[in-house]
Every structure is written in C-alpha cells, then in structure tokens.
C-alpha cells in the first residue's frame, strides 16, 4: 500500500529588533539570568505593555516577502495558560485577526517548482526558560527571553515530504535573513518549527488524523522527525491501529518521538482581545514605506545571478540560499570581476571546507575580497591553480591576505625560461623511458613529463612555459 504524507509547519522566528515587544529591555541573546528583564516583561502587578512599532514593521516585511496580504486592521489577543516560564500566565499573541495572511512561497525541489501556501503570520511574545537547579531539586527560571518578539508562520498542509519541508524552511530562513527580520540562529532557538503531520492512502482526498511534533532544533532533526513520524503512523495503520490526535515531543538523541498530551488533555487557551493594547492599524502610507524598504529577496537575487553573471541555475540557487553566502559571493566578484571563477570556488572548495570544519556561512574566517584577490592572482598568472588551492586552505587557518601568503612563502609562478629549462632537462635525463615512448608517438607520455616538471618546480612553474619548452626540447633533432 502506498501512502502520502501531509505536512503543515508552524515556524517561530525571533525578530532581530533591538528591544523587546512591550518594553525597552534588550533582546540580546545570553546574558546572566534575569538581567535582561524589567517589571513589564516579568508581568509585575500594575504594569502595562506598549507595542514596539518595529515589531510590526519586521512582521510586515516578512509578510510582504512571503506574498501575504497585510491586514490594515489587526489586533492582539491573550492566550491564557499557567506555566512558570510565562510570568503573566498569558501570552500576548494574535488570534482571529493576524497581521499577515494568505501568502505563499514557490520552492524548487528535485521534482520542480511547487507552491506552498502560507495561512498566516502573526506577532507574539516569547516566554522565559526553565532550568533545573544543579545544586538542588528545584527549578530555576530565567526571564531574559520573556517578551522577545516572535513571528509565527503557519503553512497550509501543502508539504508532502521531508525534502519539501527542508527546502521550504531553507527558503523561509533565507528570506528572514535577507530582510533582516531574524538572524535565524537555530542553535540559539531564534528559529524553530513544529511539524503537523498526517498520512493518507494515495488518491485519498480527506486528511488523516494529524499529530503535532515539537522540540525540533535543526533542519536535520526536522527531516529525521518527519521520516520517523510518517513511518510510525504507517506502521500503526498497517497493524490495524488508528492515529491519535496528540502533541508529541521529538527526542533527537533517541531518534524517536514521545506523546506529550492528547487532544482531550489539550489546553483551552481562552483567547480574548488584549484590553491593554489598542488595535494595530497599518496605514497605506506606512505599508508603502515598508514595501520600499524591502531589500532584494533570494528569488530575485538568484534570477539576477543567472542573468547578470551567467551562473548555472543550481549554483545560483545554492549561493543565494543564504544571505551570508550571497553577500560573500558578491563582494568577492566585485574585487576580481570574474563571477564564474568565484562561483566555482564557492561551490567547490569553500563549501567543502566549511562542511568539513563545521563553519557557518556567517563565520567564514577571511574577507570575501580575499577570495577575489586569490582569483585575481590566478587570472594574472602570478600563481597556478594548484598553488591557489593550497593558499585557500591556508587562508582558513591564518585569515591572511593571499598576496601576503604568496610573498611570504615565495609561491609566485616561475616565468624564468632558463630556470624552467634546467628543470626540463633534469626531467628528460631521469625519465628516458617516457622520452622514448613520446618519440615513438605515445602522446600520453608528454603529459606525464609535464607533470614531472611541474612537480619538480613544486607547482610554481608557469605551465604554458613548461609545455612550450618541453616540446621544444623533446622535438630537437638528436645530437
């Protein structure tokens, strides 16, 4: 029996505003526990919230970038529940009138382009963090994250595989980074997603019973969780069971999810309009201003790279998938004027080394301009490609300018014909068999001899000169 997986995502992104959503406390990550909070974000008696206007601007930016309709009039609501990390015992969120709605993103997967609907994007506040006391049996609370602004992006149940979910999330991440709406640091929890998943037999039009999975802290965890949950549901059905509507917690270490609560145990959040705040009105003028402040988005940039620089579709897709990477590309190509070479360096050595060393795109240790200079050195014939790869490797260790490395280590290409001739003569002397083979018409032997000469020069000799002089030497009439 063949099954179809149906997935909807709820993505939470912390906004990159300087201050919190309802007070002037900093949103900076880290800090000693309970040092980034005040009576307002800790919900002390009598205090009142005042909405940070840039939260609305950031959320509208995200909405526009994801093709949403922006509500001229929206409101905030209280979501009531008791938990120690929520000092007011309600989270201020948006219920029936979200700021942005009815958007979509077109994603490119191995099956082509697919449109994923976005139901809504709304603003809300983050909660604090509970920590188990290391010295006692108690639990400690850090309210630093309390009141940090979030957007929640809710998709339609349009996603059909773990791959689609991953690509969609990558697209969302790129958009939020490009627009500066969120720094999307998953390891700091500033981007997180819940997965709603159900399965149904292929051809079936009704949805199956869904489960909601929480605690997904990386793209890898999301992919694994989707695969595991889909399999769990299929096994359950195949064994004659039924799916229970419930919230499950993903354990990435065990590679399994566990039931947290069923529908019967679900909270009644008793949403009602937040009386301490006034409705959010986004005027036409304000909306226009936000629209005009939108930067180039990943899709637009990708298209530009294809058209302006002639990059292959795939390379453009990869490079523009991260703002950090795309900005790096752009600066590097500005320095050398050879976008294709830069693109090749990025797609090849750069991504490989980043992956090997586990370095984020945002943390490349040297300036983009240095890669530009490196390409320039090759293009001018100062160094060879082989040497360039060595220098590039070195740049990761020392973050030094390639020109400095070349000078310091004497890596310039040798263009001195006399010196190269000496090398060639040595190679001919010590490889009589190959010379013989060449003379009897075996072209392959020539390549071998070039390689030997190159090796002899420790990669520094100008390969064109080697070619020319070697040919000249070998073709000389016998003396």
């Amino acid at each position, binding site marked *: 029996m063949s099954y179809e997986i149906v997935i909807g995502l709820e993505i939470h992104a912390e906004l990159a505003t300087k201050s919190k959503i309802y007070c002037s406390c900093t949103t900076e990550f880290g800090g000693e526990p309970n040092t980034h909070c005040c009576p307002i974000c800790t919900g002390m008696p009598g205090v009142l919230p005042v909405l940070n206007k840039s939260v609305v601007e950031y959320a509208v930016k995200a909405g526009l970038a994801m093709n949403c309709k922006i509500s001229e009039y929206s409101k905030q609501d209280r979501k009531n529940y008791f938990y120690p990390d929520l000092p007011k*015992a309600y989270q201020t969120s948006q219920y029936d009138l979200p700021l942005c709605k009815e958007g979509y993103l077109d994603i490119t997967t191995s099956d082509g382009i697919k449109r994923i609907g976005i139901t809504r994007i709304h603003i809300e506040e983050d909660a604090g963090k509970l920590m188990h006391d290391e010295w006692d049996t108690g639990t400690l609370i850090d309210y630093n994250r309390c009141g940090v602004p979030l957007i929640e992006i809710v998709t339609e149940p349009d996603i059909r595989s773990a791959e689609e979910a991953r690509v969609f999330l990558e697209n969302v991440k790129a958009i939020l980074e490009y627009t500066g709406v969120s720094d999307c640091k998953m390891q700091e929890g500033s981007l997180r997603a819940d997965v709603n998943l159900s399965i149904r037999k292929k051809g079936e039009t009704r949805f199956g019973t869904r489960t909601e999975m929480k605690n997904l802290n990386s793209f890898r965890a999301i992919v694994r969780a989707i695969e595991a949950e889909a399999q769990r549901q299929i096994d359950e059905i195949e064994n004659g069971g039924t799916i229970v509507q419930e919230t499950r917690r993903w354990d990435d270490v065990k590679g399994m999810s566990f039931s947290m609560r069923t529908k019967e145990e679900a909270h009644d959040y008793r949403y009602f309009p937040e009386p301490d705040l006034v409705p959010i009105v986004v005027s036409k003028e304000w909306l226009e201003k936000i629209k005009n402040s939108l930067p180039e988005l990943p899709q637009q940039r990708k298209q530009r790279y294809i058209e302006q620089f002639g990059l292959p579709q795939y390379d453009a897709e990869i490079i523009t998938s991260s703002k950090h990477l795309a900005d790096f590309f752009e600066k590097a190509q500005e320095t050398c004027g050879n976008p294709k070479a830069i693109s090749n360096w990025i797609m090849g050595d750069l991504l490989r080394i980043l992956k090997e060393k586990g370095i984020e795109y945002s943390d490349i240790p040297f300036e983009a301009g240095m890669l530009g200079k490196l390409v320039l050195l090759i293009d001018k014939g100062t160094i060879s490609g082989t040497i360039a790869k060595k220098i590039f490797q070195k740049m990761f260790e020392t973050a030094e300018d390639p020109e400095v490395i070349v000078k310091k280590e004497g890596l310039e290409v040798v263009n001195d014909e006399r010196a190269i001739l000496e090398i060639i003569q040595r190679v001919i002397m010590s490889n009589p068999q190959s010379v013989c083979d060449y003379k009897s018409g075996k072209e392959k032997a020539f390549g071998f001899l070039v390689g030997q000469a190159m090796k002899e020069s420790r990669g520094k000799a100008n390969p064109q000169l080697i070619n020319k002089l070697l040919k000249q030497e070998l073709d000389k009439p016998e003396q």
Partner: protein
Amino acid sequence: MERQDCKVNILNMTAHQLSDLIKRKKISAVEITKNIIDNIEKREEQINAYITIAKEQALKQAEEVQKKIDEGCELPPLAGIPAAIKDNICTKDMLTTCGSKMLYNFVPPYDATVVENLKKQEVVFLGKLNMDEFAMGSTTENSYFKKTANPWDITRVPGGSSGGSAAAVAAGEAVFALGSDTGGSIRQPASFCGVVGMKPTYGAVSRFGLVAFASSLDQIGPITKDVTDCALVLNAICGHDPMDSTSLDMEYPDYSKALVNDVKGLRIGIPKEYMSDGLNDEIKEAILSASKIYEKLGATIEEFSFKMSEYAIPAYYLISSAEASSNLARYDGIKYGYRAQKFSDLIDLYKQTRSEGFGTEVKRRIMLGTYALSSGYYDAYYKKALQARTLIWQEYNKAFEKYDVILCPTAPTVAYKIGEKTDNPLEMYLGDIYTVSVNIAGLPAISLPCGFNSENLPIGMQLIGKAFDECTLIRAGYTFEKNTDFTNKTPF
C-alpha cells in the same frame, strides 16, 4: 481667620482652602500633616481606613515642602496637602496589597504614573487605603486585612471598593484620596460617605501602576471634599502617558477653569428606568429636588428612556470577570506575594496558593470569568456581552445628542449595615445598577452629595458626561454645590 481657628478646622478643610492658608503663611505643611496624622491615630481604631500609614515619611515630606515654601519657591496648588492612595495603586518602596492576602508582602519597585504626577505636585503621602480585595466588592468587607467603617455611622459600610478612600476623606484622615472605579468603585463609596468622587473618561488618567482588575473598565479618579478639589486633582492626574497604550494623546484642559457657577441653558436628561423599581424613596426624592434646583438655576430637565440599562449589569459582570480571570492569573505563588506552605508539585503549588491566597468574592469572579471565556461558551457569554457593550455605548451617544449631562442616583440605597449583604452577592451586584453602564461606555461621571435621609446618612447624585467632557460635569457639580449646603456637612 486666626491661626488658632485654622487648626480647629484643618480636618474639615478642603485642599484649596489649605493651599491658600499655606501660601499666605497662615499655617505650615508640617502643621497640617501633624494634625491629620493625629486625627488618623485618634479615628483609625473605629474607621480602619488605612492598610499602611506612612507617618514618618509623610512628616519628612511635609518638612521638605515647607522648606521650599519658606525659601520662596513657587509651588503647585496641591503642594504640602496630605493625601492617601487606594492600595491597588503602586507606590515605590511602599506596600501595595490590593486588600489581598495574595499580595500581603508586595512592595513594588515602581510608582504608578498618577503617584509620580502627585509627587511632582509635592503632595504629602499619608499611606495606603483599604479596599475590597482586588477592587471586587461594594462594601470594603472583602478586604483580607480589615473592615472599614462608615464615618457617618460606624455600624455601616463605607461602600466599595474604594471604601477606605471615601471613609478617610469623610473622616478627615486625608484631605483627598485616589480611588479606582471599575463599575462604580469611586462613585458609590463617595455617595455612601458624603464626599465627591469622580470617575474620569477611560483613557484620561494613566492606568500604569494600577493593579488591573478589568483592564477595559478600570480608571483612577479623585475622592475629594468638594468639586473644586476634584478639579485640582484632575489637573494633576489627567494627561497622556506613553506607558499606557489606552491613554489618549490629546490637549487636556485646565479643569479649574470649569469652576463656574452657571448652568443656564444646560440640557439635563434623567433616565426613567433609573428612577423606578428598586430605588429607595428618600433617594428618589433627593434626586428630584436636585433636578428642581437645576431647573431653577436655568437648566432644562427632561426624562428619557434608557432601554439598554437592563443589560448593563450582566454585560458588566461578564466582561469584568473575564478580564479579571486573566489579569489575576499571574498570582500563582511563583514570583512574588503569597505562596502556600505545603504543596506536592507545580499544579498543587498553583492550587494551594490560589485557594489560600484569594478570598471568596475574587474566586467567584475568576470562576465566572474563566467559564465565560471557555471554548463553547465564549460566543454565548463574552461575545454577547461585548455586543451589549456596543449597544449601550451607542445609546449613550444618542442621549448625548439631546443632553449635555445625565442626572441620576449614584446608588439605589444609602450605606447599609456591615454584614447585611455579604451572604447575597447577587443583591450586592444590583447595587451597581446606576454606575456600571458608565464604565461600559468609558464615560466620565461624578458623584456628589445631594441630601441626607431621615437617619442623617448621605445621599449621592450622579452626573454623567460625554467622553472627555469632565469640564461640564465640574461646572454642573460646582454650581449645585454653590447653591446648596450638602458638601459642607461633616460626620464629626
């Protein structure tokens, strides 16, 4: 006036009279404060208006103000006047209990905006006043700490929830006080205690620092000895506050300019429904004679029908309880205030703390509000109440096309006996019948003395105005006061 005479009268004097004496150096701020503190010490045993008395601090503050006066500084009108604050308004470094065991030890690290504003006026703070727990009640009997007595008859309640505020002003234990009014909590105790109480328009006074009961209805306002003082306190506390999103950003008038003895041409409407069933005869009499006085002074009086009035009480109790159930959820024993001694786990900590920390009336409203907001009941209760709210607001708007002011009783009865209504919450809720619709519509209203019944208990009348038209209420109230003698009577 001789200095000696002043002292005798200090306890009955208004803020503007005392301010005048201070300016003319007839008396010092320190003398006034000492006199009032002496009076507090004498009367508190019977009245129980205060939860916290800040004797030392008040005297020190009075000395500082007097020093500035002696140095010839130009000071605001309320400088050196001793006042007290309802205990649900946050005062930095001073206990703020809301009359609840839940906050028996809560000392805010911040001042409410109104407190800051009064500090700018160099007002002397005497302390914090008793109230029904979290402002829920009409008698101040729901306080965890004490029962306040009515200075006119100590076997009777002072009204509520700002009972401590009204009693303190009536008993000369404060020259003026601040209260809060969610459904009548300033006006009804003012009426029971024979003083002047004003609930300003929603949005005219910052709620920052007022511990929330029902956010969309709560408003801070003054309780004073006369209408002139009411205008002076309004001048000090009204204004836009960027810390309160619901505070209106506009040009606020000088309310003292409305102290004009003239109501010629003023159009006054009396809602028929408020003058019939359930209204005590003597009160009806007093309101009708007040209307005759206005007529004689050149105002026009007309009865009209306020059809939505019967929905005001149910809508009010649904909306206020729903908001309260959410506002009071933060008192969970985790962060501040009361925490149960014994509990087995987190849920049990919540249950025990809230069972022990809240009183009966507060629990009743939390349960009512939680129910009204629950899924499946929201549309039938909370949403219906919001719709009724819109209709009430619309009906007021329609009435104000014809009238400048609406005149009616503040409460259907005079102050009743302590314990008389504690077993019948529904009957107590009905006592709010003339006041709650004003909060529902966000309008300003003033209660001022308009007579005394056969037992010499004060009767209050209510004037309701258009939104942000406190000035007309001040003018109408001031004119009434100037042409009658009710505000000058004191219990002692």
